[in-house]
Every structure is written in structure tokens, then in C-alpha cells.
């Protein structure tokens, strides 16, 4: 009887370990499969996508974000500081507006700033506000940062096919990658859903560098 019970316990333990291992393997298999074979180049090197940081950097950091997503915005200063400090990171901020009208407008205006060379400044201004924005707050924030929202909107409309196409790709990629929301990072070949603090960001970059 005692032996029987011990055997049961041991086998249950083994079962638990195997289940966990199975889950881990599945996760590991799934992520590179989706991330690398399906769209890695499309995701990292979309020709329409403005690039920040060092365009020739050895590691690309991709973030799917929304201008009203609190955790995207809270981590943004850390992200930019790390890009600055590292000096060898290629940063791709993928607009994936999931919070409705004001988010779509924010993405449209900031993309419209590319032509004037004001993409980085406009994005930085909007990322530094609290998460919840009305359309007026989007325009006011940009105006306060010395930008011209009306001009940006005109520029966006000028190049509407490119920018709508870009956001279209982004949301298709998000769907294909199985992303559930923002923020979601791709660093090297690793998909990391959810917010990253600076330590985890560094670790992920180091891991990408190690495997590159």
C-alpha cells in the first residue's frame, strides 16, 4: 500500500514535470516559427516603415504600440534611453492603433510628420502624455511641441496609400504573429508580449546579440 502510494506520488510528479516541459517546448517552437519563417523580414524591414535609433544597428527592436496604451508609454522613456545608450540598436515602432479614433489619428499625424523630418519629435511628444487622449488632446500636444497638426494631416493625406498600407501590414503581422495587444516586442528573433522594464529589455537585447 505504501509502495503503491509512493509510486503514485512519483508518477504524478513526473506527469507534472512532463506537462510543464511539453508546454515550454510548445511555446519555444511556436514563437520562432511564427516570428522567423512567416514574416521576420517583413516585420523587421518593411520598406514603408520609418526607422529610429541606428539604422545600421546589429539588433532590431520592434515594438507594436498604440498612442493610448499606458504600458507602451510608461516604458517608452526607458526604451529610448536604452536605444541612445546602446548606439547599435535599430528601432522600429510599429503603429497598431487598437484604442480607437484618437489612436488612429495620432498614428496618422505622426506618420505624416516623416516628410518634414519630424517623425521622432512628434512621436516623442505623444508618447510622453498620459495614456488616455482625445483627438483634440492629440492635436494640442503636437502643437505644444512646436509641430503643425494640420500640416501633418495634409502630408499624411498626400501619402495616404503608403501610410494606410503600412498600418494595414502592421495589423496583419500582429494577427499572423498571434499578438493579443500592445505593447509587443520583437527583439532579434524573440517575440516578447507585454511591457518590458529596462533590465528585461537589456537582457533580451543581449540574448539577441548572443544568438546573432
Amino acid at each position: 500500500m505504501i509502495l503503491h502510494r509512493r509510486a503514485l506520488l512519483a508518477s504524478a510528479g513526473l506527469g507534472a514535470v512532463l506537462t510543464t516541459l511539453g508546454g515550454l517546448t510548445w511555446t519555444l517552437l511556436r514563437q520562432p516559427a511564427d516570428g522567423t519563417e512567416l514574416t521576420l523580414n517583413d516585420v523587421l524591414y518593411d520598406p514603408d516603415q520609418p526607422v529610429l535609433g541606428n539604422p545600421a544597428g546589429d539588433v532590431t527592436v520592434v515594438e507594436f504600440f498604440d498612442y493610448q496604451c499606458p504600458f507602451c508609454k510608461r516604458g517608452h522613456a526607458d526604451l529610448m534611453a536604452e536605444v541612445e545608450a546602446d548606439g547599435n540598436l535599430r528601432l522600429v515602432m510599429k503603429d497598431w492603433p487598437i484604442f480607437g479614433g484618437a489612436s488612429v489619428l495620432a498614428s496618422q499625424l505622426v506618420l505624416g510628420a516623416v516628410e518634414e523630418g519630424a517623425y521622432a519629435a512628434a512621436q516623442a511628444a505623444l508618447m510622453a502624455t498620459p495614456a488616455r487622449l482625445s483627438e483634440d488632446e492629440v492635436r494640442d500636444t503636437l502643437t505644444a511641441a512646436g509641430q503643425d497638426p494640420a500640416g501633418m494631416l495634409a502630408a499624411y493625406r498626400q501619402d495616404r496609400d503608403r501610410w494606410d498600407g503600412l498600418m494595414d501590414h502592421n495589423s496583419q503581422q500582429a494577427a499572423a504573429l498571434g499578438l493579443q495587444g500592445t505593447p509587443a516586442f520583437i527583439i532579434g528573433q524573440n517575440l516578447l508580449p507585454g511591457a518590458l522594464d529596462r533590465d528585461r529589455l537589456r537582457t533580451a537585447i543581449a540574448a539577441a546579440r548572443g544568438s546573432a
Partner: protein
Amino acid sequence: MMIRILLAALTAWTMATGAARAEPGPPLDPTEAFVLTITPALAGDLQVSWDVQPGYYLYRSKIAAMAPDGTSLPLTLPDGEIYDDPWLGRDEIYRTPVTITIPDPQGLTVLHWQGCQQDGICYAPQQAVLDADGTIRPQEAVEDDPFASWQAEGGAEQSSGSSADDASIPPQSGLTIAEDRGLVADLEGRGGILLVLAGFFGFGLLLSLTPCVLPMVPIVAGMLTRQGQGLTAGRGLALTGAYVIAMATAFGLLGIVAAWSGANLQAVLQSPAAIGVIAAIFVMLALSMFGLFELQMPAIWQARLSRGTGATGSLGGAAVLGFGSALIVGPCVTAPLAGALIYIAQTGDVALGAAALFALGLGQGVPLLAVGVFGPQILPRRGAWMERVKMAFGIVFLAMAIWLAGRILPGPIILLLWSVLLTGCGVALGALDRLSPSAPRTMRVAAGTGLLLVFAGLIQGIGAALGADDPTRPLAPLAGRTTQALAEPVPFQTVTSRTALETALDGTQPALIYVTADWCVTCRSIERGPMSDHEVAAALSDLALIKVDVSDFNAEAQAVMKTLAASGPPTMIFVDAAGAEAQGSRLIGDVDTADLLTSIAQVAP
């Protein structure tokens, strides 16, 4: 009293864990973070609940219900937590389960919601389409192709606005309704509030079989004898009736307190720590039932109460006596009562809590009513059988503890616990005892039942060893392997280009176009799962089956996907013989057998 201690302990626990909050784990699937439950309510209303998991929140402003034509339905949303934070901004959110009512929907309702994992991820907008009776329709019924609408958005001269809200909704896998809804919610879902009340009445009746009710018999008997010669059966019934109703009211008040604290502490009650504590309490209660220790109010208080108020003899006096008696009996029935209270607390519904506990009190009072009418001599003799009832309660509590622990412990461990409990019960029933030839029939039945329980326990144990995690299907790992070996592969014609696809669609019969790739994990699980189902395989035999293989994600593959307006594998497109896609039949992402059959039926000849 019990519940108060419990709540205090829980609060302390949360404060302790709150102080040491670590970074959030990997985000749950949005369907698990906000488990959606639809319950039909009175007058055709639909009660919609999101079980918001700890560490997640829903935006109050993002909850909406729409008629299919896009008009918003009026909703009354409970006040949320006002959150003001430099990053979130000022917003109203729900961190705890939230319930709304859709007033008597006519036809389809589209339900929208959106939320975040605290410090983690904000999910894309979620939605579900509900039938008037609350059934959740497969997701694709409303959004044929989410990207088509985005494209249309881009073409129109529109910079922003509320209609842009729908622009970027990604395809979502179907919603799963929680299976694990708790006893009360389950009863409520199945048969409405009446069934809950009946359940609690029955529970009270069971409780009246425990020795706890016996202290009340002398009180009732004393009250009746003081009536002297004037006591008729009717008067006796009226007096005991008043007594029982007052007692039930006292329990009802307890229900209100429990439900009220539950509404505020629901999130706490859902946390793994709290579930652990509650499971431990159930184990403790079980041990008390097994006689390891007694939970009872000091005898001197009991005596004083029966002396002090018993003399009046009026209906009012009887009521006071009944109310006070609930306090006497309270501690003795604390163990089972705490179980009932915890369930009530989980629903957070004050009216339901009061009514349910009132019903429990009434059930418990039924034997007393009998005493009132017929006198104390009709009560069953107390004896060993009462101890057995207590044992049975103890076993039920252990089962509840395991059921609760199932939410926080890995599946195989739970199966192991079931195994131990079942085997233990079986042995206690005498499964392994040697029966003498003269053993009475009852002993043989008990031993037989015991053997069955031991057998069930062994199967759970084997399931645990196999790593199964569903106690209702302990041998699923074995069964899964067999079906896989037996299932005949469904014969697909594989194409990789637009021309090949057009050739394959010869226009003579309806077709399934299945976009897949060898690196698509979900596709494997669909093929092994629902697509291997015999019913599905039979239904598919009427269709031309075309597999669009996009494993090489080259320009041609992307062009095919663009033609099909498919965002990626797995996507299933059902077209009729004329090559037209059936409205709302498209399946994106993970699917189940029912989805497949529904979509096949839309194009099948």
C-alpha cells in the same frame, strides 16, 4: 463569525502579497483574462459577466453592446474604480468581476469590451455576437474580414472618428465560456434562481440531519409545553412557524453580509492565495466533521438563552427565540454554513445571498415544524447514523477543497488527490474488508460501492501518472493517442499558386479552401482535433478540399492570401459551387468541431 475571521485573514494576506508585487507574468489569452459568461435572466434580459482575473482590468468606457445595425443599446454600468495615474491618465476601470444586464435584446447583439494586464499588455478590442437567448455565435458571424474594413477606412477621406474604432480589430479565436463557474452560478445558469433556492433548501434539510439541530428541539418542545392544555396542532404549527421563519431570517442576514463582503472581496477570493486558504479551511472543516474537534458555542450560553426568552409563549416570543436559536446553532453548523457562505460570497449578489440562506434556514427548520405539529416523539432516534451523516459532510468538504485547489494546482496533482479521496472513501465503505457469508445485504452494497470508488480512484491515479489534467477524462492522454492513430487523413489537394487554386476550384461542387503552413502550430491541432472528427470528416466528403500551402511565404503565397483576403494560416474559407464565399462562414484561428460543422452546412449541397 467564521466568515469575519476568514475575511480578515484574506485581507491581511492580500496586503502582504500586494507589498511584494512582482512583475506580471506572461499575459493570459484575452478570453481567459476576462472570462465571459452569459446568463439569461428574467424578462428576456441577458446577464453578461466578465470574470476579471487578478492583475487585469477592463475599461468601463470600452464596454458596449450594439444591435446589428450599429445602434448602441442602453447599458447601466456599475461604477468602476477611478484610476488616476501619470501614465494611464484618468480612467474608470474594473479590476474585479463585473456584471451588466442587456435589457431584453431583440435579435443579435454585438458585445464589445477591452482591457489590459496591469503593467503588461493592453489587449486589442474584444467582441462577441450573442443570440437573443444569450448563446455566443461563432466570431466570424459579424466580421467577415477585419482587414477589408481597414482598407475601406483608408480609401475614404476620413482622418479619424468613432467609426475608426473598428478599423484594426484583429481576427479573434472563438470565445470560450467558463466551465468553472462555481456551484451557485452553475445552478443559476441551469435553472434560474429557483433552483439555487431549492438547492439551498435541500442543503438546509440535510443540515437538519446533523446533531446540531437537536439542541433546538428542547427549546421548541419547552415553548410548546408552556402552552399547556390550549395547544392545538394549528397553534403549534403557528408557533414553530414563527420560530423557524425568524431563524431563517437570521441566516438570511448572514447571507447578506456574506454576499456584501463577497462583492467587495471577490478579487481577493479569486487569488491563488485566497483559494489556497479557503481550500485549507474546507480541509479543516472536514476534519471537524470527522470528529477531530468540535465547533460549538459554550453550553452555558445555550442554556441561558433557552431560559431567558422561552417564557412568553406568543408568536413574537417564538420569533425572538428562533432568531436567538440561529446564534446557538450557528457555531455548530458553522462548518457546512461556511461552505454555503463562501459560495454566496463568490456570487456577490446580495439579494440572492439573502434568499439562498433564508431557504437554507427554512430547510433546516422543517423537522422542527414536524415537532410543532406532532410533538417531539416523531424525531428519529439519534445514533450512529448521525455520525455517518457527519462523515458524509466531511467527505463533501474534502471534495470541495480539491475542486477549489484544481484552480491553482497542476492537473495531475489534482487527479492524484481525487485518487486518494476516492480510494479512501472506497476503503472506508469496506471495499477491502472480508465479508462473512452471513454479512447483511447493506454491507454488501456498501462494499460493492466501495469497490467501484476504489476502481475510480485507481483510474484517477493512472490519469495522474499519464499527466492528464481533466478529472472527468483521466485517461484522455491515452485516448488522444488512439484517435490520432485511427483517424484517416482527410484528402486535400494542395496548391501553392493562384492559377493552381483556380484550376482546383472547377465550379462543380462547393469547396473548402484551407490556408495552412507546415510551421503553423494551430493548423496541426485543428487537423488532429476537429478535422479528424468522424462527423466533420463525413460532412467534408461533399466538398472539394483544397489546401493552400503557404509554408514558403514567398510573393506568390502572399498573392494567394491577398486574393483570399486571408491574413494568415489557419484560415478556412467555404465557397459554394459558384465559388462565392458563404456569408459569415469563414473560420480564422483555432476552431472546434461545431464551428466547422456550422460553416460546412452553409455551403454543403
